[in-house]
């Protein structure tokens, strides 16, 4: 029953979903690496990106590329703003306080959206052509799928180069390794954290746009589950390690699609349960993830 075309189709779907998880997971993992903060508001920035994209799309004169670039920039700055207002006053406080604050920020963003645009889901419609289906040798994919994968890979390559080569990128890696030592070496931690939030949030906005385009709908709580799953992806790859977030994102995308695609249909309802069961298994057998170094995460 699993013909080669069917398998290829599942792989394409997996790459697609994985790309979006990877984009979200990067922001989570950078921030976790620097501040040991599980940023629960990250998924909501993704949601804001999707809404802003929708707003720009409905103004028909905006070129398609700009409906993606403007949310990237704006949400990047929103991320910086959130860090400045909510997280920076807590620098050096117990990790739990930041965690609670990020839950509060998440709730504030979501409910502000509920108040301003209501909780009703809205259709996210793309200009004609973008969702066009192509069929090559029995395998079908849309132009959007190609854009998703190409864009994600481009952005992730650019990010990797930036983190590897630029002074800020090197500073970021140093700060992630040891915040205090980095500060002693004269690294401006606030700047590094700011850049981290900008980059992470911008990528989340892209993921939000792509997610909304894929499922053709936006609603204020759409970021919760992808954000949570992206954290699972980051843990799979090794939390705090940027290539790990990408790897984890793709692995989780594949795992999820294969779970639905290759098991009897009765299981497909348990898709999300599978993801979190996977998290528990990973934490049991390899808590540092695939690319994570064996730091003493064990208590």
């Amino acid at each position, binding site marked *: 029953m699993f013909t080669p075309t069917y398998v290829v189709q599942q792989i394409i779907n997996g790459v697609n979903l994985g790309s979006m998880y990877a984009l979200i997971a990067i922001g989570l993992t950078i921030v976790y690496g620097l501040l*040991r903060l*599980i940023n629960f508001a990250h998924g909501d920035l993704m949601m804001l990106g999707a809404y802003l994209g929708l707003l720009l799309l409905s103004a028909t004169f905006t070129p398609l590329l700009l409906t993606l670039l403007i949310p990237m920039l704006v949400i990047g700055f929103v991320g910086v703003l959130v860090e400045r207002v*909510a997280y920076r*006053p*807590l620098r050096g*406080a*117990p*990790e*739990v*306080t*930041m*965690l*609670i*604050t990020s*839950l*509060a*920020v998440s*709730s*504030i963003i979501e*409910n*502000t959206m*509920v*108040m301003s645009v*209501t*909780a009703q889901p809205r259709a996210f419609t793309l200009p004609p052509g973008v969702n066009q289906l192509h069929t090559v040798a029995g395998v079908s994919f849309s132009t959007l799928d190609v854009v998703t994968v190409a864009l994600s890979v481009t952005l992730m390559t650019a990010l990797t180069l930036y983190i590897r080569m630029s002074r800020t990128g090197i500073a970021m890696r140093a700060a992630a390794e040891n915040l205090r030592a980095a500060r002693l070496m004269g690294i401006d931690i606030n700047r590094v954290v700011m850049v981290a939030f900008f980059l992470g949030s911008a990528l989340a906005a892209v993921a939000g746009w792509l997610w909304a385009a894929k499922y053709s709908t936006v609603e204020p709580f759409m970021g*919760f*589950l992808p954000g*949570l799953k992206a*954290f*699972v992806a980051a*843990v799979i790859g090794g*939390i705090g390690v940027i290539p790990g977030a990408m790897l984890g994102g793709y692995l989780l995308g594949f795992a999820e699609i294969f779970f639905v695609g290759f098991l009897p249909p009765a299981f497909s*309802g*348990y*898709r*999300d*349960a599978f*993801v*979190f*069961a996977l*998290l*528990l*298994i990973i*934490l*049991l057998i390899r*808590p540092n993830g695939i690319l994570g170094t064996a730091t*003493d*995460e*064990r*208590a």
Partner: protein
Amino acid sequence: MKGSTRNLLVGVAYVVLLGGLLWLAQSTLNNYYLRILAVIGINIILTVSLNLTNGFTGDFSLGIAAFMAIGAYTAALLSLPVAMKTASFPGLPEWLQGIAAPFLPATIAGGLLAAGVAALVGVPVLRLRGHYLAVATLGLMVIVRIVANNWQDVTRGARGINGLPPVSNIWWTFGWAVITIYVVWMIVNSPYGRAMIGVREDWLAAQARGVRLLRTRMLAFTISAFFAGVAGALWAHLITAITPSSFSFVITFNIVVMLVVGGMGSITGSVLGAVLLTLLPEGLRQVETALASGGAPVYGLSQIIIALLAALVMIFRRQGLFGGKELRLPGMVERE
């Protein structure tokens, strides 16, 4: 007289006083206020027991909604009348079909199952440092909801279970609240509780002093889950109808806010936080409706205010109202 004996007597006196007040409430208040009062009792149970993990042990659990759901569904399936089970649950296992358990054993069973699930989650997660527990327990919430949605034979899926016997009332919820406070207070003031606080303050030092980390954290987490399960059972039999979406993240978040407003690591703080933050949204809901002025009510406002409160407490008064200290009730003495 020994301090502990004296405290016990004073404690009993307070419980009698509480009983008197509840009796007064029962005979004067209408159903709307009695219901709010019952919910206050449930929230006290949830906040005080969450304090054991999140406050005293320093592990951040976000599993309230999941454990409540487990407790609620378990108790509901046990307490439903047999006739209703045969009519609505044809697929239910034979042995469960024939049972219509009284409320108390059903509630305890709900708590025990929640504690069992907590133990399953705890084994992989509590061995680790870092706040993986927060994400894992949120994941558990998603899992529980999906199981409740898909396990048609037992949970009736999205239709949920309705027509539960409306046996829950202020006597049950405050009775359990008193038990919760007593148990948590006894644990915190025992060597186990000291070990928990040790784990929170400095796990390495605690370990060096012979504290078994996993066991200590596990104890706090499972006991906390037990009471959350109990609270879920009480809640289910108060509102008499449950669906998978009844147990959303909002519940968990609000209990966390009650905890941090009262002050993590303070039992009296938890009680006060639970009371204040149950009443606040009730008041705000009326504001939301009043603001409607013809249009739809401004949903979301009360939730924003609660979240804002949490963020402000974290930024400006991290220790909460009570700052980890206990309000000593008049008549009680410090334990020697």
